[in-house]
Every structure is written in structure tokens, then in C-alpha cells.
């Protein structure tokens, strides 16, 4: 009973299309994580930034009747929340984990509260299709068997994600700015004494992680779900965090990790016909995450100064 269904599922375009979509959803916050941690600021608040992105995206889209405005608002909202994390961890030199937890909890509470207050507990209605982020039309390419469905019937944000992925990999490892970012994350004193502004780089990278998470939120709410539900990110920001580590703090590595996790998520949805308990299946991606972290990666080395606030010229 299990194997025939399994084979059918694994060879279907549906599964792979969903895998790639889920992977892209994870990859955006993961890329945010990569850039933030590379600059030496631990960011575990991608979950909260994404959730804010979801909420603000939907609300602004409904208010402005423009999905584009909603999208921009979601990105800005994520960036603003990241700025809070930046001020707390770069300027005030507070513990970055605590700040991240606080942001996650606050984002969850805030979106729930506003959602209830605003709709009187009714919940936000589903968006009309013209208020959603569209699937990009590739014309004849979309008609290709299998590949057409998997690669050419994806949401527009999916393709944006791939562009960002390639761009970020290039930025970090092939440009002068990337050299500075890595230097700041490895040894901020060295970067500072060489004339690189540690603060500027760290702020920029943290805010970038928020922008990317906000974009991921918009993707989820405006592209995939078409509405806002309480806690709709459901831990994606945390899986993205695991992908950052699993991917050894590189964009391409994180993308590989997200593909695996995306496949896990898609499988957990599609395999429900096999009679395996759906609650059990829902744990699959998370179990994959743990296995990936302990088994496959070996030792990943975080940037040396990751999570350490920079204190210029401390006492002798």
C-alpha cells in the first residue's frame, strides 16, 4: 500500500513543484540569516520578521488594493523590525539571542492581537486573485512535460529568490564589499583598524536580513496562502536558521539545505494518502533538520566574531 503511492508521489511534478516553492520560501530568510551572521550578528528573528511581513503585506494590500504596495510594505516592515534588532545588538550591545527571541514572541503576539482587533475575530478574508502575487507565465516553456510544471509554473517571487541567491553569493565572495562583510564577521577589530566601518556594515547586513524575511512573508501570505492566519509562518524562520548552519554560512550551501527541507515539507503534505498519521508526517521536515545538522554536515564553523558585540579599543 505504501510503496505504490510513494512511487507515484515521488515521480509527480506536483511534488517537485511544491518542493521548490517551499525551498524558496525557506531560502529567502536563510539568505537573510547568511548575510547577517557573516557580518557577525546572530539573527534568530527571521521567523518574526517573516510573520510581520505576512501580516503587513496582507493588510496593506487590502487597504491599498495594490499587491505591489503590499509587497513593498511587507519588505519595509521586515526591515524595520530588523533595525530594532540592529539597534539592540549593535548599538546597545545586548544579547543577540535574547533580542531575537523577544522579536519572535512580540511579532507573534502583535500580529495575533491586531488581527483579532481589526477583524473582530472573524479573520482576514481570502484575497481576490488580482490582489495576489502572480505565477509568472513563461508561455510555451510552461507546457514542457514535468520540467514545465516544476520550473516554469512558479510564483514570481520564486524567480526573484534565485536572482537574489546568485547575487548574494557573488556579493559575498567576489566583491570588495563582500570581503569587508566577511572581515567584519571574522575579526571586527581588524576591519575597524583597517578603516572599515563595523557599525555601518553590520547595520546594513542586519537590515538586509529583515528585508529578505519581509519578502519571504509577502511570498507566503500574498503568493502562496492568499490570506493571513495566526502564526502562519509555522517555524519556517527557524528551519531557515538550520539551513544557514547546514549550508556552512554560504548562500549556495543554504540553498542546498533549503532544497532538502523543502522536499521534506512537500513530502509530508503529499504522503498523507499512504495512511501514515498526518501529525507524524508533519514532523518529517523537522526531523530532517535535526538529522542534517548532526549527521551530514560535520563541523560547520561560524564566523569567528558571530554574536559578539564590537567594543572598539577596550581597556588595556
Amino acid at each position, binding site marked *: 500500500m505504501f510503496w505504490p503511492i510513494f512511487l507515484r508521489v515521488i515521480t509527480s511534478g506536483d511534488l517537485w513543484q511544491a518542493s521548490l516553492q517551499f525551498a524558496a520560501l525557506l531560502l529567502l530568510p536563510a539568505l537573510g540569516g547568511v548575510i547577517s551572521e557573516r557580518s557577525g550578528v546572530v539573527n534568530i528573528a527571521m521567523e518574526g520578521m517573516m510573520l510581520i511581513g505576512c501580516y503587513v503585506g496582507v493588510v496593506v494590500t487590502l487597504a491599498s488594493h495594490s499587491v505591489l504596495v503590499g509587497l513593498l510594505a511587507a519588505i519595509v516592515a521586515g526591515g524595520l523590525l530588523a533595525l530594532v534588532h540592529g539597534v539592540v545588538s549593535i548599538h546597545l550591545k545586548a544579547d543577540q539571542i535574547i533580542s531575537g527571541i523577544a522579536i519572535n514572541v512580540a511579532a507573534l503576539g502583535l500580529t495575533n492581537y491586531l488581527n483579532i482587533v481589526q477583524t473582530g475575530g472573524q479573520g482576514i478574508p481570502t484575497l481576490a486573485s488580482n490582489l495576489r502575487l502572480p505565477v509568472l507565465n513563461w508561455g510555451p516553456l510552461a507546457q514542457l512535460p514535468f520540467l514545465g510544471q516544476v520550473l516554469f509554473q512558479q510564483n514570481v517571487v520564486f524567480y526573484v529568490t534565485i536572482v537574489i541567491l546568485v547575487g548574494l553569493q557573488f556579493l559575498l565572495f567576489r566583491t570588495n564589499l563582500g*570581503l*569587508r562583510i566577511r572581515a567584519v564577521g571574522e575579526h571586527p577589530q581588524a576591519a575597524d583598524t583597517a578603516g572599515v566601518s563595523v557599525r555601518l556594515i553590520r547595520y546594513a547586513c542586519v537590515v538586509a536580513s529583515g528585508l529578505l524575511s519581509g519578502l519571504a512573508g509577502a511570498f507566503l501570505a500574498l503568493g502562496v496562502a492568499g490570506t493571513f492566519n495566526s502564526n502562519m509562518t509555522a517555524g519556517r524562520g527557524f528551519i531557515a536558521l538550520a539551513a544557514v548552519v547546514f549550508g556552512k554560512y554560504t548562500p549556495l550551501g543554504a540553498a542546498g539545505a533549503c532544497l532538502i527541507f523543502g522536499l521534506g515539507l512537500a513530502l509530508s503534505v503529499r504522503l498523507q494518502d499512504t495512511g501514515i498519521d498526518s501529525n507524524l508526517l508533519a514532523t518529517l521536515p523537522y526531523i530532517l533538520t535535526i538529522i542534517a545538522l548532526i549527521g551530514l554536515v560535520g563541523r560547520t564553523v561560524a564566523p569567528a566574531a558571530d554574536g559578539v558585540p564590537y567594543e572598539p579599543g577596550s581597556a588595556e
Partner: protein
Amino acid sequence: MHEQDKAPLAQAASPDLAASPYAVEMRDICKAWPGVVANDHVNLRVRRGEIHALVGENGAGKTTLMNILYGLVRPDSGEIYINGERVHISGPRDAIRLHIGMVHQHFMLIPPLTVAENIVLGQEPGGPLAVYDRRRARELVLQLSARYGLPIDPDTRIEKLSVGLQQRVEILKALYRAADILILDEPTGVLTPQETYELFDVLRALSRQGKTVIFITHKLREVLDLTDRVTVLRRGRNVGELVTREANQAEIARLMVGREVLLRVEKRPARPGPVVLRVENLHASSDRGLEALQGVSFEVHAGEILGIAGVEGNGQSELVEVLSGMRRATAGRVTVTHASGQQIGKTYDITSMNAREVRLVGVAHIPEDRRGSGLVLSDTIESNTILGRERWPRFAWARFILRLGEVALWARRLVREFDVRTPSTRLPVRALSGGNQQKVIVAREFAADPQLLIAAQPTRGVDIGAIEFIHRRLVEQRDAGKAILLVSAELDEIRSLSDRIAVMYEGRIVDIVTPEASEEELGLLMTGGRPSGASREEEAQTTGDLGA
């Protein structure tokens, strides 16, 4: 030390070079940290093209003053003039713009990046948004290295370079930023004697090319060898400005410490007893999994000090860790034999004992990392004086409940006997100066009445007064019949205290020589060379290196 001509602020009006011969002038610099005054109206005047020594004990405020000049620390008050012009330096970027470069005591290099990447960082060809131009960066570094005669491979990663070469990269980094004023903060602490001579040659050449060098040190010999003028600081204040040619070591030392200092340790010839520590063909791995000890063998007798000399990172740390039970040996054998006078007692195999067991058989250990493994910094002096002995019946009922009254009495006794300067034994150790912290460790370890004392870098970061004290105590312990293993990166310390000197290089003991061996000879051994006709020791069987 105040200047005659208290020039008004409008110094910039007369940019005449003859009128202001100083490349750097710092006036009335004040900087206080919470609880410490690091700089108290300090003045510094450095002429263009000279090599200027800034000397003082640890905590005298040298590094703070230079960090102010480099923009890493903001002064509370005071004025800075560069080439006669009043300037405000609010960050390293300002300093770089003023052509000031600094080689920090702890190198500001990023280990996983290449030499070229480290050098051009922040001023990469093409600007921040351009693609990193590897070829151009390489070219620039090679040009620079040819121009100043400082050869280096631009494509090597920093983590693969020796400390001497890393320092060269630091100097190149400053020169790449067109530094005319070069600050070096204790640059010789990590170098072999040969590397030090090379560095001096480089600095002399730079000074001939018109560069101004500020050289921070507390080693008086270097001051006399290298520099033109000296500024001496003590406890954050100026105490002297001398022309090097007219000064001598004793004078500078007296200014630094504020009293006459005995620069040489007084000791009688050793009267060695039976062998206490025997190390046979010891192997061990480093944290990175490399073979840090490759067959080390030696012996230490009761009543003698065996010094281990070597450039840091040649296995000394691992050796001490294995001997003190903090690291597992992969092969070989270590035994400790109790001895009293000429009588031989029981022998213990400590090869695979843990740190607690090693201490129980009579080994005391002054670790090289005072703050990391020697003390619990946030704990009180009282607690720190019983670390590792907290289960003794004297300090605990049923090995479990501390007898705090006893502990307090014990701590007060040690503080008195070892001259730890503190208002109370209830203070956290963190509140003490480096020298007094070290005295707490020395007190605790000596008070255990050990058979063998392992002292690793016992005077690192400690002021001259405390160094004198610790050296005297080590010799006392030797004369009381203890076996002492001294590991130090300070060649002067090794030579003045040791009765025999073992030189370590790449995980082996390359030779064991007498303390009369010349510095050149030791330096050569430390870098793997073997001098011809070196004065070997008679006990040939102890010259390890069975592995090769």
C-alpha cells in the same frame, strides 16, 4: 615635563616645518576608565624620522595613549598635533587619513583570508562596490613588498604564516595605507631573537626613508639597541623624556618602576638531587589534531630549574597541559618520583591521570593562561586560594560543606605571605592588577608544598616589581629542594632562572644547554638550526628526540 611654549590653539597658522619639528605631538592627554586613570596629562613629542620608544610597566598607559593616537579610544581631554597641525582623530579612518599606521600587539589580521586580502581590506582597488580584483591586489602587494624589501607571498592564508611573517603583513598593511607614522605595540614579544634583529633592520630602514616610528616596549635592551629618544610613563603619567644615547638601562628601569630594581636574579649554583620528573618519548596532539609533541624526553631533578625555551607554538603549551593532566598523551610515559633530600620515595605514573589526580601526587601548576585556567575571575580571592583543594578536610566538612572561616583565614595568610596588594580577600580576583592576580596563583600553588612545580609563563603581563618577586620565590622553592619546570617565551627570564635550558622546536627538544649559552646560539636552536660546537650538556641521554 610641561612644555615652555604653551602655544595657543591657532598653531595651524604657522605650518612652518622648522617651527614644529614634531611629527606627533600629544598634549595633556587624559583618559580614565571606570576605576583607573590610564592617562593623566600625558605629553608625547616625536620628531619626524626618529625611532621613539614609549616605555613603561604594564598598565602605565602606553597602549591607551597609542590607541588614542590611532583613534580607537577617545581621550577625555587633551590635544593632538600631527606635523604641527591640530587634529581630531575620532576613529581609525581619521588616523589612516593622517598617515598614521599601527601594528597592534595582538595582530589585526583575519586568519582565513589571504595576505593580499588582509592588506587591501578597506582600501581595495576599485572601491567598495567593485568586484574584488585579485590580480591587481596581488600586484600592489608585490610592488609594496619589493619597495620596502619585505618579501611575502600574497596568496597565502594568514593562518598558515609564522608569527614573524604575520607581523610583516601588519607592517605592509600600514605601509599600503601610506603610513608615515608607524606605531608598533610590543612588537618583539612573539619573535625569536633573529626575527627581532630583522625587525630592527626593517625599522631602521623605514626611519632612513623618513618614516617616524613609535615603538612601545618594556624591554630595556631593545630601547637602547634601536631607538633615538625615549618617553617613560608610570601609572599614566610622564616621568621622563630621554635621549637614548645618554641613558642606561638602570636609569630607565628606575624611572619606569619608581625605585631601584634588581634586573638580575641573584642565585647560588643549584644542588640537584634525584630525578623527580621523568618524561619519556611523549607524544600528543594539538587542538587542531596536529602532532604537537613528537617524542619529547627529559628529566627534572629535585633542586633544579629546567627552563624550556622556544618560540611559542612549538609544543610548549601542549607539553605543560599533558604534564598537568589537562590533555591526553597519545604515547609515551610521564612519572613523578617523590624525593626528600637525597632520599627517593614513591614513583607515580601520571601519564593518564586527570588534573585533580596529578595535583594529588604533588604537582603544582602555574598555568600560562592566568585568566582562562588559573583563576575564576569573578570569584573572590578567598575562593581562588583554595581552587583544587576545596575538598581537603581542612577546608570542607565531609568533603562537601565549605568551612568558610578556615578558608578566610587561609586566604588572609597567603595574601600576607605573598604580598598580594588588596584591601580585602573578599574582593573578586578580577579587581586585582595582573601582577597581583598572578601572585594569588603563585601563592596557591606554592602553598600546596609540591614535589614538582610547573610554571608556564609565570611573569607574563606582570609588572617589573612583581616579576622580581616571583623570580625570587621560584629560586627559593628550588633551594628548598623542589623540582621546577619553567616554560617561558621570555629568553631573558629563561636564561637568568634556569640551571639547564631545553630548547623546543616543532614538538621536539632539539637540545639541552647550559644557561651560559649565548643568545645567538639559543635563537638558532629555537628556529631549528643547530650551531656548530655548541656547549652541549654532559647528560647526553636527556637530549630527547628519539622519534626522528
